[in-house]
């Protein structure tokens, strides 16, 4: 057993599962958005605003943002533990990734509920 305190969920299996579940959420969200844009070629601002005013869409978008952040963390954590050998530099890189992820979540919520 290799000890690791900076991974997403400590357990490799949990991270693996989260990576796949979040990928599914992101895939459905991407397909939905592409479909929506294709079916509405003359999209107006009002229409776009209406879409994101519904609670359902807000929940779905927030789920997609949280999935993106979790997915990115697991991925960037893997990249950092592969390529950054110096522990201090690795921790700084991971901290920056974590901070950016947190900023994106707060910013995303602000945008979604600020419409």
């Amino acid at each position, binding site marked *: 057993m290799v000890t690791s305190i900076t991974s997403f969920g*400590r357990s490799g299996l949990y*991270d693996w*599962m989260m990576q796949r579940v979040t990928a599914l959420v992101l895939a459905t969200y991407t397909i939905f958005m592409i479909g929506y844009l294709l079916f509405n070629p003359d999209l107006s601002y009002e229409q776009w605003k209406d879409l994101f005013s519904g609670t359902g869409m807000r929940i779905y978008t927030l789920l997609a943002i949280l999935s993106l952040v979790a997915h990115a963390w697991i991925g960037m954590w893997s990249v950092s*533990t592969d390529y950054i050998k110096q522990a201090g530099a690795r921790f700084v890189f991971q901290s920056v990734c974590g901070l950016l992820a947190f900023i994106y979540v707060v910013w995303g919520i602000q945008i979604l509920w600020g419409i």
Partner: protein
Amino acid sequence: MLVSVYRYNPEIDDAPYMQDVHIDIPGGKDIMVLDLLQLLKDKDSTLAYRRSCREGVCGSDGMNMNGKNGLACITPLSEVVENDKLVLRPLPGLPVIRDLVIDMTQFYKQYEKIKPFLINDTPAPAIERLQSPEERAELDGLYECILCACCSTACPSFWWNPDKFVGPSGLLQAYRFLADSRDTATNERLAELDDPFSVFRCHGIMNCVNVCPKGLNPTKAIGKIRNMLIQQAT
């Protein structure tokens, strides 16, 4: 033909270098790479490499031949030589002791970690622990591993984290004991593997399958370990 061999003797050389040797193959025969190494050694006896059984059973002469890991003794020149040139390097990712000889300590440490022996706490039967033919068949494709390290040293995940990621060879062996009907330590073995590195650093790129000289499939075994972990945890 032209053979370019990786040379490094830490007692003499400041840095490793590639030595180019022109060599004529007697009779133009399709000899094995190991035979070619013997011809090279006849010319320059300082060349160091490991070899023993010369028939793909002992796993001593794993090396990188024109970019692909394999056993020199069962690799004919016709399989690897390109444009009449062969580049021979030690297996990548592990420290070089001298020339084509690598230090396999890290590789064996990972093997040791997975407890490569049967664990059974139940009282031993009078003669032996029996298996049905079906139970025995579960071990096919697993027990044949000769620990030559061709797979693990072809794996980038093992290159970056040889101290944390068990590697394809060790994981194939780990599954060999997980799949054994006579072993009773399944839960303990699985608990040891459920961290972000030991198993899950495998991203399934299948370099291991591509190079295994015995035609084994570590990626499949790793998938089965993952399935066992999922079954246990959900």
